[in-house]
């Protein structure tokens, strides 16, 4: 049984990634592993992430997951980054099991962004 490996959300996020880019001078999370590279950069206002952008090198699920992450957290509280849920993103994007590792790399990147924000606000 072969179906489209990309559900409509993956296709949409991959085709029109509205959050691709950089926040100049923002906080940065970066990770590379599993053959993918991910970078998130954020502008913070108080506790709020006002802009969240990504760069990604990897398969369509990786790119879509990065876009999904930006949509999820932009406009929210930085503290919510702790709530990053791999299960939800795996489900929303129908990520195949064998790509779980890549979503964990995204989790690491998000965590590294949270740390960077904490470092910024701590100083």
């Amino acid at each position: 049984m072969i179906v489209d490996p990309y559900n409509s959300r993956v296709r949409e996020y991959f085709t029109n990634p509205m959050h691709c880019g950089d926040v100049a001078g923002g906080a940065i999370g970066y990770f590379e592993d599993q053959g993918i590279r991910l970078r998130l950069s954020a502008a913070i206002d108080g506790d709020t992430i006002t802009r969240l952008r990504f760069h990604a090198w990897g398969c369509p699920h990786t790119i879509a997951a990065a876009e999904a992450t930006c949509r999820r957290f932009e406009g929210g509280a930085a503290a919510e980054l702790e709530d990053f849920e791999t299960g939800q993103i795996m489900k929303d994007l129908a990520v195949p099991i064998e790509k779980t590792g890549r979503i964990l790399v995204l989790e690491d990147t998000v965590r590294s962004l949270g740390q960077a924000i904490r470092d910024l606000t701590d100083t």
Partner: protein
Amino acid sequence: MSADLEPIYLDYAATTPVDGRVAERMREVQDRFYFNPSSNHFAGRRSAAVVDAAAGQLARLLNADPAEFLWTSGATESNNLAIIGAAKQRQHSGRHLVTLRTEHKAVVDVFRALEKQGFEVSWLEPDPDGRLPPERFQAALREDTQLASIMQTNNETGVVQDIQSLGAISRSRGVVFHVDGAQSVGKMPVDMAALPVDLMSITAHKLYGPKGVGALYVANGTAIEAQMFGGGQQRRLRPGTLPVDLIAGFGEAAAVAATRLEDDLTRLAALKAQLLEGIRDLDGLYVNGPEHDAYPGILNVGIEDVEGESLLLALEPLCVATGSACNSQSQEPSYVLRALGRSDIQAQSAIRFSLGRQTTREEIERAVSLYRGAVAKLRDLAPARTA
């Protein structure tokens, strides 16, 4: 999957659409000669005559004797029958076999299976452009070598082996020589009367014929063991009711190919040049396989620092291949490109464009622009290397 997308099909090496004349002939045979060619009545004999006519057409394309073909279900079966059939037939004289690392899976996996049964296989390495130097081949043959199998045109890169020289060496050493001709027959001139080849695998669906039928050329005097058992069809070498309409379509496809071979090659060469010209200035682009003297219907290119799976998706509605058609469901990097010295990451970015009779200059133009656009987009998406 965007049910309304109209594909731009540049995957002719995976399979071709059925030629119009072929479809018509098959319809005629289905209507008027659907009888079992083995049946002992006049209607059955009419079907048998249709089969004979098709063998004649195939024989004319290849300058062979119509009696030298066995009908099979495709090149996979032909390869299995040829390689296992000849190896087993001759195993009492020796169990050493020779092949190339960059053969199609339908050859590689057959030799692997024979290794498990106690045969010894020498896996030859091609040069970085994919060619097997005849000296290397010659050096691999031993006293106990019984069979060598070398493909003519490679399905991933289009590199064409020097079958004439390799066959001559094989023959001079009394080694049965099998050629996987799935990507060459009907696409370039192949003259069995001139080539020192004992066995050749062919499949109809790569030359605008139907899927589900192929042939094995067995030169007069070459003995092989049957791999399937059943009715007395085909001298007991390959039993089963002959699919007379598919065979008729295969024959017709061969006849059509014979008339257009040269024109096809000329057109394809121009289209391939257009394609390569359109993208060759891209940063980090390289051709997999030889740039010259390859089969002009195939262009395999890699590009540095672009991820393959995303590239394929970004290319939609372009239909092209990564890896070879027959194992493209796996995400493994192509073993063929690895054997040419490419890294895993390089191999994964490889795209095989394969062009065919319906390919137009406009399609190539769109392919160029889609490829350039996809590369630019993915490079924009990627973090800077120094991030």
